[in-house]
């Protein structure tokens, strides 16, 4: 397998002014994040609001400039390319957003929305050639071909999300970043779109970077999972290990917090105290220690590093597990 996307030591700090006298402070939105996505694979980034998962996606797309780090797409460095040069790279890298109501231009017909990337990247010689491609793309996302002539506002949320996916597929990307792409949809429609992503990946060999807070959906469609907390990846590994034997106390609590749709299910819930601290002054040492039921002295002093465990490439950043690493 070859890596489609590689991210090394990515950082994004924002400068904010706080208080009456405008003292400036740094928000550590993303703090030293590294991962790779292999061809045809789905990597999910999960975490709660403010953990930096969306910022990771936005820096890869260069919608925000990273503070530090390196990003490679098919082996080509992305983060140092002048912004004009991103055009060529964006052909390989597409995005689907959460809100299908604000991410589609209401004045354009579905045909024009889907055709725009084709025209931008010179992927058709004539109008009819582009029309044919648009028709193919609508087939791929299971929309009727007569949708072409209509405006996006005539469609429901789920159908609009299909239009957005067709647009993302148009330039034949290697990877699509899905930023909460199914979160806003109704339950019955969400299942349709989740199934569509799974089908498309099989048909086209697409890689997906699936950014989501919904762990049940993630478990359903992902190969690997990265869990973020306060700007850092605290655990990353295969779906199986992550959902059967999560190692980090935060991952354990996160998984046990999810309500199970079965009134008879037995739960051993780990309810965390408090809430995520501010990323402006993150806690010293391990960032999770203020809410961790198992924190000890060392956690306040030393930041645990992501370390490989003996099982299938699973990595965790926690002092409790250091003895088990190689």
């Amino acid at each position, binding site marked *: 397998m070859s890596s489609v996307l590689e991210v090394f030591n990515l950082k994004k700090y924002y400068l904010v002014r706080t208080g009456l006298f405008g003292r400036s402070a740094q928000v550590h939105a993303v703090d030293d994040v590294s991962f790779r996505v292999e061809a045809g694979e789905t990597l999910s980034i999960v975490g709660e609001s403010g953990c930096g998962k969306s910022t990771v996606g936005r820096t890869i797309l260069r919608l925000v400039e990273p503070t530090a780090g390196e990003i490679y797409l098919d082996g080509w460095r992305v983060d140092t390319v002048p912004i004009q040069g991103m055009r060529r790279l964006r052909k390989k890298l597409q995005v689907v957003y959460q809100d299908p109501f604000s991410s589609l231009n209401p004045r354009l017909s579905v045909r024009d929305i889907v055709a725009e990337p084709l025209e931008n990247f010179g992927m058709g010689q004539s109008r009819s050639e582009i029309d044919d491609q648009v028709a193919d793309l609508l087939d791929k996302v299971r929309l009727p071909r007569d949708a072409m002539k209509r405006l996006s506002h005539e469609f429901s949320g789920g159908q609009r999300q299909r239009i957005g996916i067709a647009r993302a597929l148009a330039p034949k990307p290697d990877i699509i970043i899905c930023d909460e792409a199914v979160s806003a949809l109704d*339950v019955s429609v969400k299942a349709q779109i*989740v*199934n569509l992503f*799974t089908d498309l990946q099989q048909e086209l060999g697409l890689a997906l970077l699936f950014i989501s807070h919904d762990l049940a959906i993630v478990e359903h469609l992902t190969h690997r999972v990265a869990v973020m907390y306060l700007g850092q990846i605290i655990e990353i590994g295969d779906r199986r290990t992550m959902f059967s034997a999560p190692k980090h106390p935060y991952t354990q*609590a996160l998984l046990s*917090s999810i*309500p199970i*749709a079965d009134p008879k299910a037995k739960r051993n*819930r780990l309810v*965390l105290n408090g809430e995520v601290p501010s990323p402006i002054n993150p806690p010293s040492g391990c960032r999770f220690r203020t809410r961790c039921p198992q924190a000890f002295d060392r956690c306040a002093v030393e930041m645990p590093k992501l370390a490989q465990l003996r099982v299938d490439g699973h990595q965790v950043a926690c002092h409790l597990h250091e003895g088990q690493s190689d």
Partner: protein
Amino acid sequence: MVLLNVEHLSTIFQTSRGDLRAVNDLSFRVSKGETVAIVGESGSGKSVSAMSIMRLLDESRCRLSGKVELKGRDLLSADEAAMRAIRGNQVGLIFQEPMTALNPVVTVGRQIAEAARLHETMTRRQAAEKAIEMLTRVGIPDPRRRANEYPHQLSGGMRQRVMIAMALICRPELLIADEPTTALDVTVQAQILDLMRSLREQFGSAIILITHDLGVVAEMADRVIIMYAGRKVEEGTAEEIFARPRHPYTKGLLGAVPRLGSSLEGKTGRLVEIEGTVPDPRVATVGCAFAPRCRGAADICRLSQPGLVRTRSDHQVACHFATELVVA
């Protein structure tokens, strides 16, 4: 004892494009201390029915009909002053987005105290003390300091706790919670659900929980009402609904939600899809509103609206094939 009795409630909005039937012939009861979940997707009428019960809609633009009784007292004919006395006193309300429900320029302590003083005679000082006591009970750390803060200074989870404190300060017999945890992160959601459970025990309030999240339903509800296109299509005890759903829509909903742990059981095949989308409420339907999306739909479904049928003493379904499904 029946606390709330809703019979044949309909809510019709008058719009420029014709009448919109948001709630259609809805009947249900809530007993003392019971938690009833109303489940549905967007446009199912679940929130509008709660707003109708509490008379919170702009009634110059909509028509309510049917009967809503709170402990035998008719609410649909009550005047605004009477409703105001009921809201907050006998019935507490919690909404999804606490930021829009709280006053941004008044400290949270004063807002809670104000709610207490509206319904009970007490001095300002007593009310302020009571507000702090409530903030403590809903698990806000350092309540004395927090009482002097404004809503924007609190996190989403804290604001939701403030809403709950305000809703419960008069020990209402009924709490209506409309998507109370939808805007929250899961670890905070777990805290709030825990809190609602423990307060339910302490205060003995009945709860109407409006949600689309079947996980939350399974954790909280005694009884479940499934709504589709403004109508109740199924009702039963939580155990019944999850173990033996009868309506094709309910079955679809339950199959559409991936379960945590599914990959460990090798169940990551396709999710159940309910084809199509929720119908436009402005278009009047003949027959069953779910028929266009239903795989088992027959001619009768497109011609006549199925009535609610009891399949067991604790289970009602509105489907022409409800009784046959029991045998199958």
